[in-house]
């Protein structure tokens, strides 16, 4: 590989970049697992290609999904990506837990280098390729529906964001097959990730995957901020929006301001690695402490970006399944804004031990504790919403209840960690790992899963199987407690994080419990996929075409399930909060409009997929130093953008007659449907029409 023209063509690629070659040369358990993972990626890709070809669905996939600018389809594709990446990152977590359980005064079966890659990919994927796409997908699907709009402000940009994220995820999967990933943790601290200590391709994969993803997220934030500000239906003042839209708005604003620091941090690291600059090197005037500063300027707002949309989901779910108006709307809106702004004032608590004076630490410690206040306000508002309501224990509600109880524990340990003296004691132990999983899993994951269950019937026209939903829920909760509560004990006892081998036999029982918990979590994931399979098989029995399976409050429930491409045949006029709920009680819903008009929608476009693929290719070239690929990629991306700006025929018109036909068909379905009381909402009697109690 190092003779003749090959270095120019293939960069620094070498046969040992392939895990199969490495496993052949050195067949340890660790290497074989690595080769196994690579095989799964290749087999998965081949199976997908064969299946699509055999079913003859390439044209369908391309024209109905991949080139679509429909926010609903884009949202669904984001969630699909998230669920696939969840599977990978969860398996990585199980491997790490198994290793730690096996490696008490023994080397275990995963090498230190492999283990380091595992904790790095686990964190990177969970944050950037699971949680972010999942919440972005739900925001994509729901927000235009809840504000009474037909699409987002910039549909093409929306597709580009999706494909940049997809391309970055592809890069992550490629790193399993060609090369290796970073061993520097999801935060990638230099000087360890500088060339001097990590000259391999790993940190480069990490840098470029994050760069593509962060650009995608910045553009998503921009898109939804403008959409919510400029495209609400007439009469929908800010104080009439749903709480989910409030959280989507604040999340979008936070994305706009929080992603750039990450772009800067990774770009400067890239300059060090590629051009020999000295931003974060040990020598010649580098200042590695600035990296921690820049990274966490992003990192802290990021975790609030992760948690605010799920908080929005909880507001929707708790209100709907308590059959009661959300308590304290104004305080919830203000609390959301407060959390968004305060999240930019606390980032130093991620590096209390870096060497600042106690005074500076104290300031940031106090600021950190103040975020508990608006969060507590929200929690009380949800509890008061349930009080004297008629609570129904559907799967989304179960997740909300588990969240309320479990998140508070994580929040409490967060307050503990906000005190610098305490943080010094447990810094870099698994106490911290327990804390952040204790807030992210109930806070973010349960909320996203609740949202998935809640809006699935709207998106696909049939409900998810409730029994398997409960099984999955039970496993997620039990698994979480088993996997993470022991880590508090271990962390307080001094067990370090990110360790491949453990030297204290007293840790063993706790590690076994945690390992068992990880397996229960894996079962939870499996149950989720079983639920999907069973639900698709039973879909005819669970159709809710009338569109309102839960007696919902927001506008999204006032249209068919699934909605037409343009969402609303006629843009609604809004006269208050929870307009659909109010309308149902006054018998003003499901009336055909006086006139139907032609509707103009964007045409599909291949700009998104092209830019995503070119972006990933350019990034791949950068990783492997394949300079011709980088130059071509950049020129092609610029060329694509310029070419697209010359396109003029970018809209299609849906004739009024077609809109009328679609609407009338749905209204006939509603007229034929039997309204059901809430007790029957998880049975097949539910056709999506709510009985209005008198």
């Amino acid at each position: 590989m190092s003779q003749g023209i090959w270095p120019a063509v293939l960069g620094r690629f070498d046969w040992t970049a392939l895990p199969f070659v490495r496993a052949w040369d050195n067949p340890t358990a660790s290497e074989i697992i690595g080769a196994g993972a690579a095989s799964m990626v290749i087999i998965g890709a081949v199976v997908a290609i064969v299946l699509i070809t055999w079913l003859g669905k390439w044209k369908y996939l391309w024209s109905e999904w991949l080139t679509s600018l429909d926010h609903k389809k884009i949202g669904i594709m984001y969630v699909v990506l998230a669920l696939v990446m969840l599977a990978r990152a969860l398996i990585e977590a199980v491997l790490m837990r198994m290793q730690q359980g096996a490696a008490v005064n023994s080397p275990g079966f995963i090498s230190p280098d492999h283990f380091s890659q595992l904790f790095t990919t686990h964190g990177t994927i969970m944050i950037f390729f699971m949680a972010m796409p999942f919440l972005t997908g739900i925001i994509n699907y729901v927000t235009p529906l809840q504000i009474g709009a037909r699409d987002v402000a910039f549909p093409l940009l929306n597709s580009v964001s999706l494909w940049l994220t997809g391309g970055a995820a592809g890069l992550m999967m490629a790193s399993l097959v060609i090369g290796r990933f970073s061993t520097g943790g999801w935060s990638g601290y230099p000087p360890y990730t500088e060339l001097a200590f990590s000259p391999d391709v790993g940190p480069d994969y990490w840098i470029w995957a994050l760069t593509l993803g962060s650009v995608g997220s910045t553009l998503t934030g921009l898109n939804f901020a403008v959409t919510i500000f400029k495209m609400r239906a007439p009469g929908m003042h800010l104080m009439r929006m749903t709480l989910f839209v409030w959280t989507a708005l604040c999340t979008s604003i936070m994305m706009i301001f929080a992603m750039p620091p990450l772009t800067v941090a990774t770009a400067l690291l890239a300059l060090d690695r590629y051009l020999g600059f000295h931003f974060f090197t040990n020598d010649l005037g580098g200042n590695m402490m600035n990296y921690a500063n820049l990274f966490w300027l992003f990192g802290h707002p990021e975790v609030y970006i992760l948690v605010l949309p799920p908080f929005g989901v909880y507001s929707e779910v708790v209100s709907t399944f308590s059959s009661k108006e959300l308590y304290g709307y104004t305080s919830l809106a203000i609390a959301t804004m407060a959390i968004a702004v305060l999240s930019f004032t606390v980032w130093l608590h991620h590096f209390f031990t870096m060497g600042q004076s106690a005074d500076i630490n104290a300031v940031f410690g106090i600021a950190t504790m103040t975020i508990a206040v608006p969060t507590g306000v929200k929690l009380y508002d949800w509890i008061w919403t349930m009080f004297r309501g008629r609570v129904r224990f559907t799967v989304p509600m179960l997740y909300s209840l588990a969240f309320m109880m479990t998140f508070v524990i994580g929040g409490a340990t967060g307050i503990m960690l906000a005190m610098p003296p305490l943080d010094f004691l447990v810094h870099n132990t698994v106490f911290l790992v327990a804390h952040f999983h204790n807030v992210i899993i109930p806070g973010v994951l349960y909320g996203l899963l609740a949202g998935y269950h809640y809006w699935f019937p709207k998106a696909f026209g049939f409900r998810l199987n409730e029994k398997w939903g409960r099984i999955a829920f039970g496993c997620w909760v039990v698994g979480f407690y088993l996997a993470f509560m022991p880590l508090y004990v271990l962390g307080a006892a001094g067990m370090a994080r990110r360790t491949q081998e453990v030297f204290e036999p007293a840790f063993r029982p706790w590690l076994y419990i945690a390992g068992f918990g990880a397996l229960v979590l894996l079962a939870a994931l499996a149950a989720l996929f079983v639920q999907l399979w069973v639900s698709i098989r039973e879909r005819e029995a669970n159709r809710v075409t009338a569109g309102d399976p839960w007696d919902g409050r927001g506008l999204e429930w006032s249209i068919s399930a699934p909605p037409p491409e343009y969402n609303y045949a006629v843009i609604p006029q809004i006269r208050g909060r929870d307009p659909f709920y109010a309308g149902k009680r006054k018998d003003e819903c499901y009336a055909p409009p006086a006139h139907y008009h032609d509707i103009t929608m964007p045409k599909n476009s291949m700009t998104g997929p092209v830019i995503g693929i070119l972006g990933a290719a350019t990034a791949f070239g950068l990783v492997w130093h394949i300079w011709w690929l980088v130059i071509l990629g950049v020129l092609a991306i610029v060329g694509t953008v310029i070419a697209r700006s010359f396109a003029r025929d970018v809209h299609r018109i849906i004739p009024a007659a077609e809109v009328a036909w679609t609407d009338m068909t749905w209204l006939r379905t509603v007229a034929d449907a039997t309204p059901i009381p809430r007790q029957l909402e998880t049975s097949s009697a539910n056709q999506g029409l709510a009985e209005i109690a008198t």
Partner: protein
Amino acid sequence: MSGPNEGKRREMWSYVIGYVLALALTGVAFAAVRWPTFAATTTLAIVFGLALVQIIVHFRFFLHVSLAKSSRDDLQLVLFSMLIVALMVSGTIVILANLRHRMM
């Protein structure tokens, strides 16, 4: 008062005034450094102060973002952005200065 040419002349004057003000502010800043008259810190404060004024001039005369009600949304966005920027930049400088003082 609202004929088409009237609007055009008003808009042209906006750019001319902005340009002349910017030239002056730039000139003074460069002069203060080229021909030092004050102490170093004072000169620096003058340079930064003039820069801030010139930025406002650009916003008002080139970008038409002012205190007027109709450009209020855009002004709010700019001010909010500057708040976040100020938090990030001042935080960075204070923290890193403290670290340098203690360690380097």
